[in-house]
């Protein structure tokens, strides 16, 4: 399987460990990956809110680059995967819009014809690689470490477009946690937003939303949180450092490939653990491999 990684704006700068862990895990599981360079922002939230066609052209260019490279896209961020899928759906159903997009892309010799598939990382892990193959590849299983999954709204909704798991009761992350030997922990409000998209308009409200989630996860006794979106990961981390957080134990937040990578026997230096803002000790100590 050959895939091209679309990293978006935030991952390469704010969470490069997610990028490194994704590459290491996918390669370990037999996927050939390249990174999309010379890309552009997908337009999520900001351009999206201002002009539909500008948003469509921005995602159209990314789809066309993947087509030129003859690789399906794997997106690591909920906003990016959601944007790419939403605009693909738009361009596949509105020929006039597609013609307009292609007239702009023609400047660079690019064209979107609809051949490329867009996958969120969770789909690649679960549907393309498969849970059995992941289980077979585990060499250093966790010993029942308790992980709370946070899905990321744009990863699973709207189902009609993104086609990931079940929007009301997703289990895809929990199944990966259990395949790696962890214990999936349930908590109220599991499918609720992290509050990340609210940071632009009202930081205080974003904080209330994020801390509510952290509180529920703490009460459920989780040793850590796994995420599948860079914004969720950053929001659920930074909200624990805010003035309103009080001083409870900080719950480490890990992108799912970082958690999984350790159980696959990948060196922790390649998974970016040293860049984690919250000490991941409660999670990594539960892995029979542990940190080197």
């Amino acid at each position, binding site marked *: 399987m050959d895939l091209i990684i679309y990293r978006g704006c935030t991952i*390469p700068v*704010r969470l490069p460990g997610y990028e490194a862990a994704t590459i290491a895990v996918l390669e370990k599981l037999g996927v050939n990956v390249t990174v999309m360079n010379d890309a*552009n*922002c997908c337009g999520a939230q900001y351009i999206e*809110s201002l*002009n539909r066609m*500008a948003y469509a052209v921005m995602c159209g260019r990314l789809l066309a680059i993947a087509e030129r490279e003859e690789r399906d896209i794997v997106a690591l961020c909920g906003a990016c995967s959601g944007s790419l899928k939403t605009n693909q759906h738009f361009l596949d159903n509105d020929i006039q819009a597609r013609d307009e997009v292609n007239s*702009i892309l023609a400047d660079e010799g690019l064209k979107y014809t609809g051949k490329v598939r867009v996958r969120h990382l969770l789909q690649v892990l679960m549907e393309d690689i498969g849970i059995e193959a992941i289980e077979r590849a585990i060499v250093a299983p966790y010993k029942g470490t308790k992980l709370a999954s946070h899905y990321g709204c744009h990863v699973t909704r709207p189902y009609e477009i993104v086609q990931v798991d079940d*929007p009301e009761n997703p289990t895809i992350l929990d199944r990966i946690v259990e395949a790696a030997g962890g214990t999936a922990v349930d908590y109220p409000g599991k499918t609720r937003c992290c509050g990340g998209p609210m940071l632009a308009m009202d930081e205080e409200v974003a904080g209330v939303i994020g801390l509510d989630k952290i509180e529920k996860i703490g009460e459920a006794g989780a040793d850590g949180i796994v995420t599948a979106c860079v914004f969720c990961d950053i929001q659920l981390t930074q909200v624990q450092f805010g003035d309103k957080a009080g001083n409870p134990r900080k719950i480490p937040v890990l992108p799912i490939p970082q958690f999984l990578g350790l159980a696959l026997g990948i060196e922790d230096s390649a998974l970016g653990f040293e860049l984690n803002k919250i000490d991941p000790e409660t999670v990594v100590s539960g892995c029979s491999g542990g940190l080197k």
Partner: protein
Amino acid sequence: MSKTEKHKRLTPSSDFAEEVASIHGGEDIAKCIQCGICTASCVVARATEKYRPRKIIQKIILGDRVEVLTSEMSWFCMTCRMCEDRCQEGVSPAEIFHAVRVLAASEGHIPNVFRKSADTVLEDGWMLKDAYSDFIQDERDDLGLDPEVTFNEKFAHRIKEKYFSKKEGPR
């Protein structure tokens, strides 16, 4: 009178509701029965009293065009789509507010933070050029990643020129 016509006649509406319904994403607004499951499902409404999705839809239906387009209310939707998932009538407040934002933007009503972020993307091609430093390059290098992160500015400028240089109607 056909069933559809009867249904239409009994649904409160306004010129503004029809205008929103004519924009991509706003089509289903007339289906709203004002039950309030959107507000009950909304994490933003749980966190602050200043955002009530059902009320915004009511204002649109009643034709409060100026208030809806000039206030920041539609920009508080995080597009998490929990309300859309729960709505029993097939209405997506997230999509309706998206249509409202596009309409508001076309008339120049854009919250500063959205305007600034959009300007950054249209200038640099991405959001984080300013935060991308030597320090980040070192971190990337240590992880075995290519320290160089490149985004295409020229394409962003083309988008800016085509879609943001002159006043256009909602798209």
